[in-house]
C-alpha cells in the first residue's frame, strides 16, 4: 500500500519534472527540474531495492554533475529572444530527430510482435546471493565476473579525464606572485630576521 503510493508519487514527479525540464523557459529552472527528476528516480530505485544505485545516483549526478551544470548555466548570459530565434531555426532538425526516434519505437514494437530474441539460458553465475547487502552483491559481481569490463570502463574514464586536462591546461608562464607554500613554511626566523642596534646617526649597511 505504502509502496504503491510512493511509487506513483515518485513516478509522476519524475515524468512531470522531466516534461518541465524541456518546457521551462529559463535554463536554470530547467536544470533544477532535471535535478528533481534525478532525485525522484533515485527514490524509484530505492523502491525496487537497489539502494546502493540510488545513493550513487544522488551522489554522482545530483551532488556533482548537476552542480556543475547549474554552475555553467547560471553564468551564461542568456538572451531569450535569441534563444527563441534559434529554436525556430533548428525546428526542422528537431522534427527530423523526433521522426527518427518515433520510427525506431514503432519498428521495435513491430519486432517484438514477431517474437522474442533467443538470448540463451541463464547459467546462474550472476545471481545475487540472498541475505547479502546490495553493495556486497554488486562488488562481488563487479570485481570477479565483470572485472575486465570494469577495468576497461575505468581506463576509458581515465583517458577522457587526461584528454580534458590536456585540452584545457595552459602552461602558466611568467607567474606573478607565485606562492611556494612549503618554501614559506621552511623559512626560519634565523635567516629572515637580523637584529641590529645602530648607534644614533650611523645607520646600517644592508
Amino acid at each position, binding site marked *: *500500500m*505504502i509502496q504503491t503510493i510512493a511509487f506513483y508519487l515518485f513516478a509522476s514527479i519524475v515524468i512531470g519534472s522531466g516534461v518541465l525540464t524541456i518546457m521551462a523557459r*529559463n535554463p*536554470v*529552472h530547467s536544470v*533544477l527540474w532535471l*535535478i528533481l527528476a534525478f532525485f525522484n528516480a533515485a527514490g524509484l530505485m530505492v523502491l525496487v531495492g537497489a*539502494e*546502493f544505485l540510488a*545513493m*550513487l545516483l*544522488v*551522489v554522482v549526478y*545530483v*551532488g*556533482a554533475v548537476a*552542480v*556543475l551544470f*547549474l*554552475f555553467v548555466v*547560471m*553564468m551564461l548570459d542568456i538572451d531569450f529572444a535569441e534563444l527563441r530565434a534559434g529554436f525556430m531555426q533548428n525546428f526542422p532538425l528537431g522534427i527530423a530527430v523526433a521522426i527518427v526516434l518515433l520510427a525506431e519505437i514503432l519498428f521495435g514494437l513491430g519486432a517484438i510482435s514477431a517474437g522474442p530474441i533467443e538470448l540463451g539460458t541463464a547459467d546462474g553465475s550472476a545471481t545475487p546471493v540472498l541475505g547479502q*547487502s*546490495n*553493495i556486497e552483491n554488486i562488488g562481488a559481481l563487479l570485481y570477479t565476473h565483470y572485472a575486465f569490463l570494469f577495468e576497461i570502463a575505468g581506463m576509458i574514464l581515465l583517458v577522457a579525464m587526461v584528454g580534458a586536462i590536456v585540452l584545457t591546461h595552459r602552461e602558466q608562464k611568467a607567474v606573478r606572485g607565485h606562492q611556494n*607554500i612549503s618554501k614559506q613554511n621552511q623559512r626560519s626566523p634565523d635567516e629572515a630576521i637580523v637584529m641590529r642596534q645602530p648607534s644614533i646617526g650611523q645607520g646600517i649597511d644592508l
Partner: protein
Amino acid sequence: MTKFFQSWGMTYEAAWFAATISGILLIALPLMLSVAMVIYVDRKVWAAINLRRGPNVVGPFGLLQSFADGLKVFLQETIIPSAANKGIFLLAPIVTFTVALAAWAVIPFDAGVVLADINVGLLYILAISSLSVYGVVMSGWASNSKYPFFSAMRAAAQMISYEVSIGFILVCVVLWAGSFNLTEIVEAQRGHGFGIVNGYIFNLLLFPMWVMFFISCLAETQRVPFDLTEAESELVAGYQTEYSSMSFALFWLGEYANILLMCSLNTILFFGGWLPPLDIDLIPWFDIPGIVWFLGKTFFFFFLFSWVMATVPRYRYDQLMRLGWKVFLPISLIFIVVISGYLMATGHFSA
C-alpha cells in the same frame, strides 16, 4: 516503535505511519532546540576567547538569547527583492533547512535508537550533504545580485572539492568497519585498540584521516577558516545578503544543524559513537546511557568547531582549493591504498 502503536489497536500501516511521524518529530524538535542552545554556546565560547561577556541579558546567563533572536526574526517582514527570481529565492532557504534535517534520519543516537537503520547509511549522509550546496547556489543565483552570486560560485566549487576528500576518508573507515551501516561502524569500534579503547581515533592509520576529516568538515560546513562564501570583508554576507526575517533564519538554522551533523559524524566514525571511551568497566560508565556519551562527544566537537572559529584567520580562496585538491586528495588516496594493503596483509577480510 511500530509495535508500540500497534498495541494501541492500530493496523500495521497506520502504526507504521504514526511511528515514522513521531520518530521524525522526536529527532527534529530536540534538534531545533539544540541548534538554538548551540548558537548560544558558540557565542559564549567566542566571547570567552575574546575576553568578552557574550550574550548575558536575556534570561539567566543569557540562556534565552537565541529564542529572543528567533522571535525577532519571526516578527520581521520578509523582503523579496523586486529583481529576484521569486520562486527559487523562496525555495532556497527551504532546501537548505530540509536537507540539513533529512540527514539526521540515519544517525544512531544509541544502540538501536535510529530512525532509519539502512545498509547504506554512510552513503545516504554523503548524498544528502552533497545536496546542501543547492540551497547556497540557488539563493545566490535567485537573489540577482553580485555578492550573493560570487558567494554561490565559491560555495559550489568549495563543497564539491571537499566532498571528494571526505568521500575517500569515509572509504578508509568503511574498509576498516566492513559496513556502510552507521550502527555497525560504531559497533566495529568496540575495543578497537588492544581490546581496551573504543574508537578508530586510537588507530595510527586512521588518526591522520580523522584530522583531515575534521578540517574537511570545517570546509564543508563553511566554518571559519573556510567561510569564504560569507566572507564579510569581501562579500557583505555572501549568499544571505538579500535575505531577511524567517528566510534568513532558515539558513541560519540549517547551517547549525549541518554543523551539528558533522560533529556527530566525527563522533560516530572516529570516536566510538555511543560507546564509553574505554571498554573496561573501571567506573560504572556502562550504566550511563549511550545517548549521553553520544551527545557529550558531539558537544565536545562543537566546542572544537567554535574554538577554531575564534582563533584561526580566514583562508585565501586559492589556498583553500590547493588544500583540497593538492594536499587532502592525494593524501587520502594514498591512505586508501595503505589501509587496504594493511588490512589485506593482516587478513582482516578473511574472517
